[in-house]
């Protein structure tokens, strides 16, 4: 029985095995390797497939740059999926080697807490073991959530956990039907308008994916599917990218719409059935106003659940029911947490933590997606873990700072940001006390490619008083992730508007637009950049 290690006196439960249940449609059965969500079903496969989607767009552009592609081009999902999966497996192995090199003992077992110092492990063969430790860190992450109120959701739909491990792209052909249901109080004349509005959807193309939810996961999945030439629709209950700057969110979805992704706004799914043809028949309610609802249905080859935070649905007419408060479910079941005194948040089910990542049990810590109120992002989890390890080893007392966390949404038009959204800055400081600088710019690579650049935009939100400290910085355009990182360092150093403007630009790049920004929203002047 292992005892406390002197150098690293704690056990983490992050790497204990997670076994994915047999998928509803029998597509695959996956046992993840080391690396968690990011490596297996998150950032890594997502970004690789996003790259594939960008290459799809690049192929259209290539013609404008003088490259003519004579033959028809098709995309083979299995080639891409195989390459992605091989890379993920190499990372799994890399993590395993690193654990070994650092003399971290690795148990491939399912763990639960017996008391504040004891973990019981149970592996796949049913062998039991008991581990004791001075400190215990819970980093079990989360999983995508299926809606509970939609019949057929779990049986016929998949989530982002499954998408990257599909061996084949789902089949083609689908027919479309429409059904309108209106409450009696709505006038007949209105009905005609509705019929007219909806009929444009009657003749749909084939090989269609429906992504439910416009969280960043949902939009990224829809974007990569569209990029490799598949038909993607997104169903949105209310707004896209909740929690992000909403002007930026509209630019992101606007760009996707302009590129052919269909958005069903104000829609809530009600059921999924499988037709004899193998296609999925999805029924949903479109809420057009308090009085007007339309029941609609359509068929898709696949349905992917990517419900964001706080999706509130209406199960029945006039009766509001809160469903699925959070998008992702924390992996806390079976850990026996409440029994040993680790408190879970009543709404989210996540582990309640203090600023030093401590749970309600003083020697038990929680980091990453499983911890309440923490951003669901890999780098924050990594950093929080490293800082915690140093504190526990007595090397430092530095706490994790969760402010000014930069992030990037890898949609077809990437969106990177750091700091506050315009809305949060407004509510925190007041509309009169912030200055918003903005510009619509045209990347040089869009000019020759004759691409629509109307969604390429930069915005800097500043405190209006004194030195005009930068509160938030937002960028949509190519390579947003690479652009924003450096600005995040400068925001951390206390960036002011003057310092931003005093830096010489790099010409011709997209990133330089942030240093050239000078039109305020308040001025009402045209914010379109012209010339160099």
């Amino acid at each position: 029985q292992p005892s406390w290690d002197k150098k690293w006196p704690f056990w983490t439960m992050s790497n204990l095995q997670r076994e994915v249940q047999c998928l509803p449609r029998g597509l695959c059965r996956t046992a993840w390797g080391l690396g968690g969500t990011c490596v297996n079903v998150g950032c890594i496969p997502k970004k690789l497939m996003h790259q594939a989607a960008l290459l799809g767009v690049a192929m259209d552009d290539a013609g404008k740059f003088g490259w003519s592609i004579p033959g028809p081009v098709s995309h083979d999902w299995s080639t891409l999926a195989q390459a992605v999966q091989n890379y993920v497996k190499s990372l799994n192995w890399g993590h395993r080697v690193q654990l070994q090199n650092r003399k971290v003992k690795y148990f491939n077992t399912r763990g639960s807490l017996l008391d504040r110092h004891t973990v019981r492990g149970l592996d796949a063969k049913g062998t039991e073991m008991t581990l004791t430790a001075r400190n215990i860190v819970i980093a079990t992450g989360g999983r995508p959530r299926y809606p509970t109120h939609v019949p057929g959701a779990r049986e016929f739909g998949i989530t982002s956990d499954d998408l990257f491990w599909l061996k084949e792209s789902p089949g083609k052909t689908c027919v479309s039907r429409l059904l309108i249901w209106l409450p009696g109080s709505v006038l007949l004349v209105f009905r005609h308008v509705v019929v007219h509005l909806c009929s444009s959807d009657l003749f749909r193309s084939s090989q269609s994916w429906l992504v439910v939810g416009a969280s960043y996961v949902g939009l990224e999945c829809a974007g990569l599917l569209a990029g490799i030439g598949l038909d993607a629709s997104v169903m949105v209950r209310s707004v896209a990218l909740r929690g992000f700057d909403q002007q930026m969110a509209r630019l992101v979805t606007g760009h996707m719409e302009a590129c052919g992704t269909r958005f069903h706004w104000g829609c809530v799914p009600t059921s999924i059935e499988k037709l004899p043809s193998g296609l999925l028949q999805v029924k949903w309610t479109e809420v057009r106003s308090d009085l007007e609802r339309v029941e609609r249905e359509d068929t898709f080859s696949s349905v992917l659940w990517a419900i964001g935070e706080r999706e509130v649905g209406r199960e029945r007419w006039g009766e509001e029911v809160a469903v699925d408060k959070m998008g992702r479910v924390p992996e806390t079941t079976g850990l026996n947490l409440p029994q040993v005194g680790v408190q879970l948040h009543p709404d989210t089910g996540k582990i309640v933590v203090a600023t030093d990542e401590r749970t309600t049990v003083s020697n038990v810590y929680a980091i990453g997606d499983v911890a309440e109120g923490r951003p669901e992002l890999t780098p924050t989890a990594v950093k929080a873990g490293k800082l915690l390890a140093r504190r526990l080893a007595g090397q430092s007392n530095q706490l994790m700072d969760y402010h000014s966390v930069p992030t990037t949404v890898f949609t077809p038009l990437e969106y990177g940001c750091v700091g506050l959204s315009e809305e949060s800055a407004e509510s925190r400081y007041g509309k009169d006390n912030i200055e918003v600088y903005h510009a619509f710019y045209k990347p040089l690579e869009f000019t020759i490619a004759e691409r629509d650049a109307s969604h390429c935009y930069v915005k800097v939100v500043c405190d209006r008083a004194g030195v005009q400290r930068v509160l938030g910085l937002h960028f949509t355009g190519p390579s947003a992730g690479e652009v924003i990182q450096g600005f995040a360092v400068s925001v951390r150093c206390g960036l002011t508007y003057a310092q931003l403007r005093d830096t010489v630009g790099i010409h011709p790049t997209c990133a330089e637009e942030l240093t050239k920004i000078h039109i305020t929203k308040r001025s009402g002047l045209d914010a379109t950049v012209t010339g160099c």
Partner: protein
Amino acid sequence: MEVLVHFSRMQASYLTFRLPVSLVCVVRRRMASDAVTRFDFLVIGGGSGGLAGARRAAELGATCAVIENNRLGGTCVNVGCVPKKVMWNTSVHAEYLHDHADYGFEGAQAHFSWQLIKNKRDAYVSHLNQIYRNNLDKARIQTIQGNARFTDDPEPTVDVSGKKYTAPHILIATGGHPSTVSDEDVPGASLGITSDGFFELESCPRHSVLVGAGYIAVEMAGILSSLGSKTSLIIRHDGVLRNFDALISSNCTKELENSGIDLWRNTQVKSVQKTEQGLNITLGTKDAKDKDAKEKTDRIQGVDCLLWAIGREPNTAGLNLSQMGVKLDPKGCIVVDEFQNTTRQGIYALGDVCGKALLTPVAIAAGRKLAHRLFEGKAESKLDYTNIPTVVFTHPPIGTIGLTEDEAIRSWGKTSVKAYTTSFTPMYYTITSRKTKCVMKLVCVGKEEKVVGLHMQGPGCDEMLQGFAVAIKMGATKADFDNTIAIHPTSSEELVTMR
């Protein structure tokens, strides 16, 4: 007089609108100085720096004129950054086309049409020329077409095609041009072209030979090679970009060779002959470090494009500067102080003609700062020439700012300098057969580890640098980098997770 009347009327209508009192003064002054047109600000050179200065001055209420002997926009727009980046983007597509199959796309085989991209590039450049023209018109800045020459008048005065212009503030922003080699030094040298000529090529050369190891040489070599031209690069020493950090110099040299460019080290062009099959270029190779080595002679045959990329020179010829008391340095660049003042009162210079930081945004910023100093009374308005970020559009691109490691050691001593380096394969290339590395170096000094230099080469480094440049200019330390949360998965996150 006809001209004077015309200008007076134009100025008058403008000034009436603004300030009727000064109108009277302006007209009176004009009458006195006989056929010399007066402005508040006269700019020689309609490139990035000159246009930015003139426009800002006009915004601040000055009457301005810009003298240009060629197309508006200068080097950047016509034969520099803009058309170069268009060609770089074009060549990036060549790289993507190699990767399509690895990412699951079938049937993406392409033929390249140089003519198509050249036409589109030219059309875009003309479009920009027009935008500049409109911007000047909107700002009511007079555009004067022709060559400027300072006259012998006691007050600094410029003559363009026989007409005289003057202003209390005259800015020289004439830029530069590529250096050439004379036929006396290298017989047949004039059979070659420069980067200016590159933008006139009507087809993709089958075999290109480039001479030079600077950023223009490596950019042009990368573009030509990617677009399918057999490319040879002739360099005098062991590596390219020798004034960059050693990491970048060695990595870029390696990348050029890996991409299939035929690199001739320690080599110089001896002579060029024209034949029916193209140019025959005779090369002499001798390792300067090896004193006893004999020069080896080689010949490259059938070359259809010889491109000299051996540096740039200031455009000062014909300005008659020697008569004006405007001092030039030994290389012919105009000597200016930190406020862009030349040695003659009332004459200023900025941009490439000063030979320092030959970059569009530097000239633009310097022009605007000068305008604020001259026309807004901001006596301290000047450009800070330290920590200027630069990107070289090689394959993959290079980003650099601040001091190289060697420079930092020279200034602070070896013990106070700490360099962090990393080298990795970006995620994009993990599933491709074509591989490229990304290398990065942070140069830090002192106990607080202030970041004084950042040097990197790799995919995405072009867009990566700008934000870090802001942070470095603010005086960021290694700890500030470390305390910034990474963005995953990107290449730039490596810069905030360096150990």
